[in-house]
């Protein structure tokens, strides 16, 4: 099967970026939007074709990894060479489909949402750039190519969060997002350096080869009680945790909601933030065979993040922030699934479940964000306290939002049920405590999602400045498409397609897990219904009852403040400022001291050069006399 056309999937978006970016200011904004959207439509078609061809042409039982092409980009040493190329395997093909689909929806949606904004062309250029970077990331043939696109994704995220660059809060959020992920990428980079040094390759196929240098000939070097491979994998996970906003590197994601809402849907819900999951999945064999310790860490961090974020989500008032924390929580699920997974056939259930959840989550989370965008578009506010009773004004948004909420709550037979259920099964088989946590989180998820849903669409009807109206079709069509995807994507035979070792795996339905998880979801929903269906004082009562805890959660457990303290107080005030002072006064002072000493001494010697002839005459004559005395009388 010839896949050489896949190069267009990478070349088209970058071409779009340059066309719209360079010529955008000269053309009609609508034209640039249409160019971007239609270009992306072609890309989406191409990825579907690729996916279809790939999944229908398996050789034997196992899906092979295909390196469509690769060329040398930059050689480092004889063996360490950065290639650029395209790698097709079930994982990357699945990601291609997810990214292009969501991206296309967002492109179409933005035609309506961003209409009339200043910098419309710039917006589409950035979107193309992001799509390019994200696609390049998932088809990377080697870890360094991935790092390259990883950074590009970070920058495009920075550009898009800071799209409203005249808003100081947007600028600050963009900066925070970039710097936090950059810090994480430092770990990623060092991890890459370590891993590549001991394995002498960047290539994914060589790295994940079960007989390859990373797994079979794993280095025995031990550093601080852990093998070097474990260190490397932990550091690489740090990079993943940064992008996927795992605790404690999660602080940038809620702030990133300053960007335009479609951007949040695309980048900060469906695609970029799952890059960390993708990274771990990509290197999963190494984690599993050479660094099981790191995998444990991933499971715990994922589990903790999902609980932590879910609790915070219950208290937030900004609807986009609620969704952001919900994203954190869901990515936590994915990480947990990877962390508890084994390798090969049935043991690899967690791996499959994680990616399955990634797949379904992309659709329903994008749907939630786009729905929220639609609401914000109508109400011109992000705060749920200023909303209510919108079901009458915006029927399509209402229905699709409800579908998404049901999906994320794990109500059968929507897609979220299947993927979440498999994660819970994997956790149940591996570690009971983690299972328990995830089970509770499922309940909390249902609660806060329906809290959001009821407050927006039911509850009391506040005074609107102007009557909210349904969004234009460019916005509602993507909503409907995504709603359909959320409903039906659960029936995709995922276990046949994307598995840890490329072989199909047989999943059984575990009633013992499924029933309690549905039940806890129901409980969460009904709890939310009681509190938020009509306006009443019960929420305040509950909040008062849990006063300290509520405040802590509302303040996001003060993690931001800790970071602010570390960066502003410690790094800026106690490192940077003294260094600046030290440099100006000590180092430069030393140099000036040398100069000043010279000036001082020359100043005192200068007096001899008085400019008065008589003194010179005197020096001259007494010198002559002294010389005479010395030469003729004293030798």
């Amino acid at each position: 099967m010839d896949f050489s056309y896949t190069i267009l999937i990478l070349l088209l978006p970058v071409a779009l970026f340059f066309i719209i970016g360079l010529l955008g200011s000269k053309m009609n904004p609508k034209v640039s939007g249409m160019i971007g959207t239609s270009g992306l439509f072609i890309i989406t078609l191409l990825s579907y074709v690729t996916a279809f061809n790939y999944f229908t042409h398996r050789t034997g039982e196992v899906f092979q990894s295909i390196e469509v092409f690769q060329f040398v980009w930059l050689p480092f040493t004889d063996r360490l060479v950065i290639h650029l190329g395209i790698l097709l395997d079930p994982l990357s093909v699945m990601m291609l489909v997810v990214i292009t689909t969501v991206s296309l929806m967002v492109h179409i949606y933005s035609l309506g949402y961003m209409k009339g904004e200043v910098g419309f062309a710039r917006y589409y250029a950035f979107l193309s750039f992001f799509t390019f970077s994200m696609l390049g990331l998932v088809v990377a043939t080697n870890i360094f190519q991935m790092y390259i696109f990883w950074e590009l994704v970070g920058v495009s995220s920075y550009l898009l969060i800071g799209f409203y660059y005249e808003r100081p809060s947007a600028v600050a959020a963009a900066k925070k997002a970039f710097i936090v992920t950059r810090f994480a990428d430092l770990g990623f980079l060092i991890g890459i350096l370590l891993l590549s040094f001991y394995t002498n390759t960047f290539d994914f196929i060589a790295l994940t080869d079960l007989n390859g240098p990373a797994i079979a000939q794993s280095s025995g070097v031990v550093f601080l009680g852990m093998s070097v491979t474990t260190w490397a994998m932990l550091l690489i996970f740090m990079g993943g945790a940064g992008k996927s906003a795992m605790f404690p590197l999660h602080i940038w994601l809620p702030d990133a909601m300053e960007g335009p809402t479609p951007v949040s849907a695309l980048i900060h819900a469906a695609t970029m933030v799952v890059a960390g999951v993708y990274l771990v999945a990509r290197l999963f064999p190494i984690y599993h065979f050479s660094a099981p310790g790191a995998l444990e860490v991933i499971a715990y961090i994922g589990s903790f993040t999902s609980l932590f974020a879910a609790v915070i989500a219950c208290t937030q008032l900004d609807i986009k922030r609620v969704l952001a924390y919900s994203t954190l929580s869901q990515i936590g699920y994915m990480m947990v699934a990877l962390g508890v997974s084994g390798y090969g056939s049935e043991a690899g259930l967690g791996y499959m479940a994680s990616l399955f959840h990634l797949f379904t989550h992309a659709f329903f989370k994008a749907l939630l964000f786009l729905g929220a965008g639609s609401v914000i578009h109508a109400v011109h506010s992000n705060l749920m306290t200023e909303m209510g009773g919108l079901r009458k004004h915006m029927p399509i948004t209402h229905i699709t939002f409800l579908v998404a909420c049901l999906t994320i709550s794990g109500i059968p037979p929507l897609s979220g049920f299947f993927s979440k259920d498999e994660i819970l099964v994997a956790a149940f088989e591996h570690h009971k405590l983690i299972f328990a946590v995830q089970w509770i989180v499922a309940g909390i998820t249902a609660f806060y999602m329906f809290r959001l849903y009821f407050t927006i669409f039911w509850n009391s009807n506040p005074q609107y400045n102007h009557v909210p109206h349904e969004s234009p079709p460019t916005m509602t069509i993507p909503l409907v498409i995504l709603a359909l995807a959320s409903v039906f994507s659960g029936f995709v035979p995922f276990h046949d397609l994307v598995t840890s070792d490329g072989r199909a795996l047989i999943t059984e339905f575990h009633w013992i897990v499924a029933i309690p998880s549905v039940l806890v979801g129901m409980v969460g929903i009904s709890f939310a219904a009681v509190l938020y269906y009509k306006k009443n004082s019960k929420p305040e009562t509950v909040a008062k009852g849990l006063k300290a805890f509520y405040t802590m959660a509302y303040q996001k457990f003060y993690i931001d403040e800790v970071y602010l303290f570390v960066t502003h107080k410690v790094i800026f005030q106690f490192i940077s400022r003294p260094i600046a002072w030290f440099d100006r006064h000590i180092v430069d002072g030393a140099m000036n001291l040398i100069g000043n000493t010279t000036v001082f001494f020359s100043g005192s010697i200068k007096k001899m050069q008085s400019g008065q002839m008589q003194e010179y005459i005197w020096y001259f004559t007494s010198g002559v006399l002294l010389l005479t005395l010395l030469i003729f009388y004293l030798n």
Partner: protein
Amino acid sequence: MNPLLFLLIIPLLTIVGIAMVNDLAKVRWVSAIGMSAQLLISFVLLYLFYQQRSSGNTDDMLFVSTATWYESFNIQLKFGVDGISISMILLTSIVTFSGMFVSWQVEFLRKEFFISLIILAGGVFGFFISLDLFTMFLFYEMAVIPMYLLIGIWGSGPKEYSAMKLTLMLMGGSALLLVGLLGIYFNSAPEGGKLTFDLTEIAKVHIPLSAQLFFFPFTFIGFGVLGALFPFHTWSPDGHASAPTAVSMLHAGVLMKLGGYGCFRVAMYLLPEAAHSLAWIFIILTTISVVYGAFGAIWQKDLKYINAYSSVSHCGLVLFALLMMNETATTGAILQMISHGLMTALFFALIGMIYGRTHTRMINEMGGLMKVIPFLSVVYVIAGLASLGLPGLSGFVAEMTIFVGSFQHTDTFHRVATILACSSIVITAVYILRVVGILLLGPIKNNHYLELQDAQWFEKLSGVTLVVSIAIIGMSPFWLSSLIREPLNQMINHLTN
């Protein structure tokens, strides 16, 4: 005729041309034509170089020509280039070319300004093509001296102080350097015979270890001062802050590279054993440079100071990589020199243009420039992204090559140093984004800024030249990397054996 000589003849002709032209408006055209010719010659040189190589010429140095200059001390005018020098020449001509256009609007003593600028550039070209230590030193001084006039006369702020400081510190450095060079000279024939300044000849003899150990610090620090080695870097913030735009560009973009180039070509290449045994001291110093410069940049308020400290950090990385003494890291160091040369020149050019409009360099007083001068702001963002190592721009290529290269050492000392140096990429991101955030984004702080004009054609030309160069290196680094790597194999062998 040796094509290298054109690199010296063209600046000379340009100077004569400028001196003869009386109309001040034509002066800049004459210099622009001269520097364009220089740029062209550099590319022709690159072409000829490839041609020679493909026709099977495997000499270390190409286009070698020798003329005895002073018989009794065996001083020669010896020119020749290899891949490294060619790439440095390309860098120099690109930066000079755009520097010329940045100074398009210099009004005060325009003729003299351009003449000094071209003398400076000529000195740099001469330095890079020289193979004789004495000639090298001569051209080095020729490049440093006009700097004093350029800063002292056309500078801003406390220009006399800065010019004096810069010149004195560099002169102090070159005093050390002279001691080192003479030390090498007088040990260049340990078994008797004729003493020589010839670089390639000296490389063949084995200088006694005691002499190496004694003279290596002199030579290394001598060049290191120019390469902003901690703690001899303090001329850089003051000097850059006072210098006129084009001079900052040339100085940070090219002249500081003389330091790194000299450290490698002279200090380490000629004194390899001393380089090995003393490397640890300088690795510590350069690691400090890298981190310290980056932290120092965070707290600055003046755009030029920020950039000067960032230069300290980046140039520290150059020396750091050189001291790793393996092929990859050294390739990275040269790449970093070129990359930093281009992007810092771009930075200074932009700062100059912004200063020319807002008449302040304090970031706190500016804001929201993206809205009023979008071209300059976008280019500034690109330069910033290059500086913080965005893939696709040159900084990434250089930094990654350095890090991978320096990671090839397995001992803890090198590892720790490397990881510390790596951490600078985060700090760089912090200060770059801080500046971008305050300066370009956000609301407009001063209503006068609403009337600012965006870039004029010559500013666009100079900015685009640099951006395109940065992007070309960043997107297809292979050719440059292989060009640099080509002579390194032999040189690194010489260093390690």
